[in-house]
């Protein structure tokens, strides 16, 4: 092939790319498309190594959608939810966000991981699309901008509560050991709060052990920690790595108290730590045992859909995120009908409406700061109680 020929092919390819680039359009100046219902989008990690979180969140969204549409939708119009998979990486989240925004959705729920949020949320912010994050707990998420909010509280309030609870159960605690996964954004954010809270209570950690999200064998870190003879172990890990750590801690003979953070507030820990989950203290942003009408309704819907199981925190938070958007849409539409409104203006008003409201959710009553940070009234600490046989259990609320 000649040089000229190759150059010709190259030029052709580049021209084609340019043509394709020209085809995009921003629907922001058109009226909200209400033909099929009121459009809302969600972007979750349904594939990749965060797939289990996305799977739990999807259930929550489906239940919230069902709940909204069986109680009148958005003033008679159905709420429609377009769900897209982000994979577990940043480029996937960005692509899914852009796709949803170009589709003309009024608001977005997602993305699943904090790292994805730092990448994808600025896109929504620049294009003026409200985002309600169901699971991003890292510092700095609502600060991305006006359009970014979250219903997933950081552990700032819960972590100290859990430590206080441990001290209430065993006032003589002296030596705390801390574990966290250094390559996980949730884990690194939460452990900072746990460690500060321990210091405040005069329990300077005797050792801090770092793990990796994908680690499954923790004997090195456990032997190093147990050498310090801790009587309290504080864990900021996700269900799988955290569950394995707890199982191995117990198998290797640790008998003291264990406090775990939000990441383990899910029945997904049962198959990992099995009977060894028993007695674990968990700082909860959602308690399945919270006694409110909103939680009762959520539990009922969850049990109908998934058998007798207990909903994970991620499911409850995703449910809450869509519930917030749904209720804000109902109020907005009453005040200022969505029909005929330009999409960009409707998105902005919806964000103001989201931030202005108070919501009775499965998480308890919540509202937002002007920045979009959630203000949650109820947090709790639970103790895991496993059934004999170690296959299932419950998160018993501690008062």
């Amino acid at each position, binding site marked *: 092939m000649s040089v000229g020929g190759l150059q010709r092919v190259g030029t052709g390819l580049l021209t084609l790319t340019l043509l394709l680039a020209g085809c995009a359009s921003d629907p922001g100046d058109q009226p909200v498309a209400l033909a099929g219902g009121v459009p809302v989008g969600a972007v979750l990690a349904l*594939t990749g*190594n965060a*797939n289990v979180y996305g799977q739990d969140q999807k259930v929550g969204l489906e239940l919230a959608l069902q709940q909204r549409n069986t109680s009148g939708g958005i003033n008679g119009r159905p709420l429609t939810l377009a769900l897209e998979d982000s994979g577990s990486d940043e480029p996937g989240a960005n692509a899914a966000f852009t796709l949803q925004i170009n589709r003309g959705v009024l608001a977005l729920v997602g993305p699943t991981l904090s790292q994805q949020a730092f990448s994808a949320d600025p896109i929504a912010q620049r294009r003026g699309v409200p985002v309600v994050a169901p699971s991003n707990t890292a510092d700095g998420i609502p600060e991305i901008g006006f359009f970014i909010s979250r219903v997933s509280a950081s552990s700032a309030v819960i972590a100290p509560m859990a430590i206080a609870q441990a001290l209430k159960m065993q006032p003589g605690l002296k030596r705390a050991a801390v574990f966290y996964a250094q390559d996980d954004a949730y884990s690194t954010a939460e452990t900072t709060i746990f460690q500060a809270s321990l210091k405040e209570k005069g329990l300077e950690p005797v050792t801090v052990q770092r793990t990796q999200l994908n680690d499954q*064998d923790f*004997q*090195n870190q456990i032997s*190093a920690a147990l050498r310090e003879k801790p009587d309290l172990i504080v864990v900021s890990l996700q269900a799988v790595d955290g569950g394995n750590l707890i199982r191995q801690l117990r198998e290797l003979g640790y008998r003291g108290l264990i406090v775990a953070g939000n990441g383990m507030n899910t029945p997904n820990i049962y*198959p990992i730590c099995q009977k060894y989950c028993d007695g674990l203290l968990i700082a909860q942003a959602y308690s399945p045992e919270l006694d409110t009408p909103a939680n009762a309704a959520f539990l009922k819907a969850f049990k109908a859909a998934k058998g007798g199981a207990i909903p994970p925190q991620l499911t409850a938070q995703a449910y809450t995120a869509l519930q917030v958007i749904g209720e804000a849409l109902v109020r907005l539409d009453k005040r200022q009908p969505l029909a005929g409104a330009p999409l960009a203006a409707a998105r902005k008003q919806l964000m103001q409406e989201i931030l202005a409201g108070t919501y009775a959710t499965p998480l308890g009553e919540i509202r937002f700061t002007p920045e979009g940070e959630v203000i949650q009234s109820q947090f709790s600490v639970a103790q895991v109680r496993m059934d004999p046989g*170690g*296959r299932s259990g419950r998160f018993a609320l501690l008062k």
Partner: protein
Amino acid sequence: MDLIQILVNGLSVGAVYGLFALGYTLVFSVLGVINFAHGAVFTLGAYFTYLLIGGAIGANGLMAGFQLPFALPFWGALPLAGLGAALVALLVERVAFRPLRRRRADPLLALITSLGAGVILVNLIQLLVGAESYAIPTSVLGGLPASFPLLGARVRTVQALLLGVAVLLLALLSLWLEGSRNGRGLQAVAEDPETAQLLGIDSTAMVRLAFGLSGFLAGVAGGLVGLSVSIAGPYFGIGYGLKGLAVLVLGGLGSVPGAVLGGLIVGLAEAFVPADWSGYKDAVSYGFLFLVLLLRPRGLLGRPLPTKV
């Protein structure tokens, strides 16, 4: 820290790496190429074991609620799960490797086709049984204690079992490779496929044999590791694929005893990283790998460098 405890910890992790790498290296020894679908076959072995001991599928995925009408004891389920995994490995060979061999295509292509097979398997698992974790209950070990003391260190019983099985499988495999007709045929094909062909050895059959065995080993390993750390979803075995590369090279690519040795070495190297530097743990094993590659490219027990890619 006590030396003994460090050794125990290192052997404990190393046993898992070694078990994973046994089947990984078998395919490499014959084809000279890495099978990126190995991690997915390992994962399937764990799921097969779970189903065979009577486990039920959760509420997500197309097989939601599915349970076999019978339940086998763990030690009966494990070899059957290995057979199931062997069938899958043969299928992988059939679709991702054999067409390339027949066309004498660049072996490099098998990296990509096997990756494709792995992606399909992992996502198929998720589609069928969901992304959640499954437990092989600790009770299958019967009355054994969860851990026992050894020279002042503590050993998890299940990890001791893993190490024992890894060494046992290695011994059996070595005996078979040296002592049986098929085993020697396999080695001949691994040495030099063309000469083997001249000697009347059916290299296609040998490749199939290698895949079947590799799948069996992966399946058994998956079930055992699942017993130790539960089955953490469809990506369960994928994570070992990368660490497995380090293990393969350290032991000597294509060397069967080297796979187990490499596993133990990587495990020990990680165990000797001081706790304060545990953030750098993975860099230590890959740094070590890097050095070994530069100083002794054939690995610790490997054959001289092959001329083929």
